[in-house]
């Protein structure tokens, strides 16, 4: 198995910094008149989506194309999966065609990790069940760093991040907690008890059910989507009640410090977890998140396909860095 990106934990603080740093160079490419470099010419990136997505799939494909990689798209609904082909047979078939990276979204937690054992390609987790969505967390960290004007390489020590909503079903929350904590942020989860994981043991976070109490001490307010499709049983009494207690409206925004940012991974349920006019405020950096997603995914693809060992062992990376210095010229 080639190295891949399955979880934020695999990456560690240093890996996260490496991606964020490289994303700056990738962002500059996207701003050029010709936003394309020949870096990954001849490499093939396949996106395999067993679950619906707009931004993640398009974002990965755009990122691959800006680096001149070829892209293949697989969507479960139009594939032989509908004829009963297994996950293993499906990915081995695609692997046999000679792809260098597989970007996988799957409704089952752990599916990308399984696939990584079966194929030679580098596997990138683009969201698996309720487990992780590492590139989302990376682009969120990048967006926070850029929006707050923090210097390259700086961490989030002391930054107060409040994550509001359906943490229980959210892979975005899991990856973000891991990434933000690794960078030193203070993370507080806000949700009704039924939408928090059954146990928070081992999570580097605080938790509460009182949103209004934590808003004045929040630098970044991260709203999660209420995932109606993953709701099992009566977890919330009704939508209106949820919105009254946990929805971010104008009045709650006033309780936030003036410089506080508002993030949302999308797709938004306007009028449920976020009010229409709040989503369009200047301090809502939701569109920046989408834009930055391309740069961050370019960085991940480049590190996996262009730099042997960059996301693997530290030693390989350091040796490579030495060679880079020595052989310039």
């Amino acid at each position: 198995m080639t190295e891949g990106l399955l979880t934020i934990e695999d990456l560690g603080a240093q890996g996260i910094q490496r991606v964020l740093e490289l994303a700056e160079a990738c962002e500059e490419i996207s701003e050029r008149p010709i936003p394309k470099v020949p870096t990954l010419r001849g490499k093939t990136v396949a996106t395999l989506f067993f679950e619906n997505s707009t931004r993640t799939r398009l974002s990965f494909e755009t990122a691959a194309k800006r680096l001149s990689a070829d892209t293949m798209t697989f969507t479960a609904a139009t594939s032989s999966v509908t004829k009963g082909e297994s996950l293993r047979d499906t990915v081995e078939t695609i692997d046999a065609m000679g792809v260098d990276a597989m970007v996988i979204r799957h409704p089952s937690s752990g599916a990308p990790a399984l696939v990584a054992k079966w194929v030679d390609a580098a596997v990138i987790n683009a969201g698996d069940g309720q487990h992780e969505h590492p590139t989302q967390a990376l682009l969120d960290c990048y967006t926070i760093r850029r929006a707050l004007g923090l210097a390259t390489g700086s961490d989030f020590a002391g930054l107060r991040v409040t994550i509001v909503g359906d943490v229980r079903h959210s892979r975005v929350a899991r990856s973000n907690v891991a990434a933000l904590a690794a960078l030193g942020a203070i993370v507080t989860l806000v949700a009704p008890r039924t939408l928090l994981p059954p146990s928070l043991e081992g999570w580097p976070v605080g938790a509460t059910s009182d949103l209004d109490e934590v808003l004045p001490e929040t630098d970044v307010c991260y709203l999660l989507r209420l995932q109606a499709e993953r709701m099992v049983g009566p977890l919330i009494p009704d939508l209106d009640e949820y919105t009254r207690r946990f929805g971010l409206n104008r009045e709650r925004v006033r309780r936030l410090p003036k410089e506080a940012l508002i993030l949302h991974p999308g797709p938004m349920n306007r009028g449920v977890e976020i009010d229409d006019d709040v989503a369009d405020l200047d301090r809502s950096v939701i569109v920046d998140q989408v834009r930055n997603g391309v740069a961050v995914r370019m960085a991940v693809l480049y590190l996996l396909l262009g730099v042997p060992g960059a996301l693997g062992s530290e030693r390989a990376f350091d040796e490579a860095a030495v060679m880079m210095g020595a052989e310039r010229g």
Partner: protein
Amino acid sequence: MGSVRPIRTEGPKLGERDLELARPAGRAFVAKSTVMSADDVRRALRRIAHEIVERNHGTDDLVVIGLAAGGTPLAADIAKLLVEIDGREVPLGSLDVSFYRDDIGTRSVLPNSVTKVPVDLTGKVVVLVDDVLFTGRTVRAALDALADHGRARAVQLAVMIDRGHRELPIRPDFVGKNLPTRRDELVMVTSDGVSLGGYAEEAS
């Protein structure tokens, strides 16, 4: 669940990566001889700046672009000297060519800075500046990178040290010093001058 005090999580101290890159354990650069002093470098830069003005009959349409990371401080110096000599501001940029290298995937090539090209290069005369000209592969990559920023009327190359061993048909227009070297030697250009050396023995 009542309200729980947020736990302050321990983050590692970051931002020390650049230092690590420059001096990885056991593989530090060791100077064997000094080739140019700080004064020599300063004088060479001044001569190169004059040559640039002479060759181009002034500084109209000039853009000075340093190749990251070694060429950027030299490019800034040259741009300053050009203003001194000709009295006109010359646009200054920097180029990281990592995304354009031909050895991507065979070894690690990591961008170490963000490219900044301040103007559309169409119709301009670009002076590329680098510290050491060796195989010529960096310059080849730089020419590809430049093409994505517009069609320059001409591209000229200024280097502090030409150490030979070219693998591509590339030659410099302005040279600080021609320095015969062995392939396995290292050339280090800093503001303190130029020295020739090698890697320290692996300390283990």
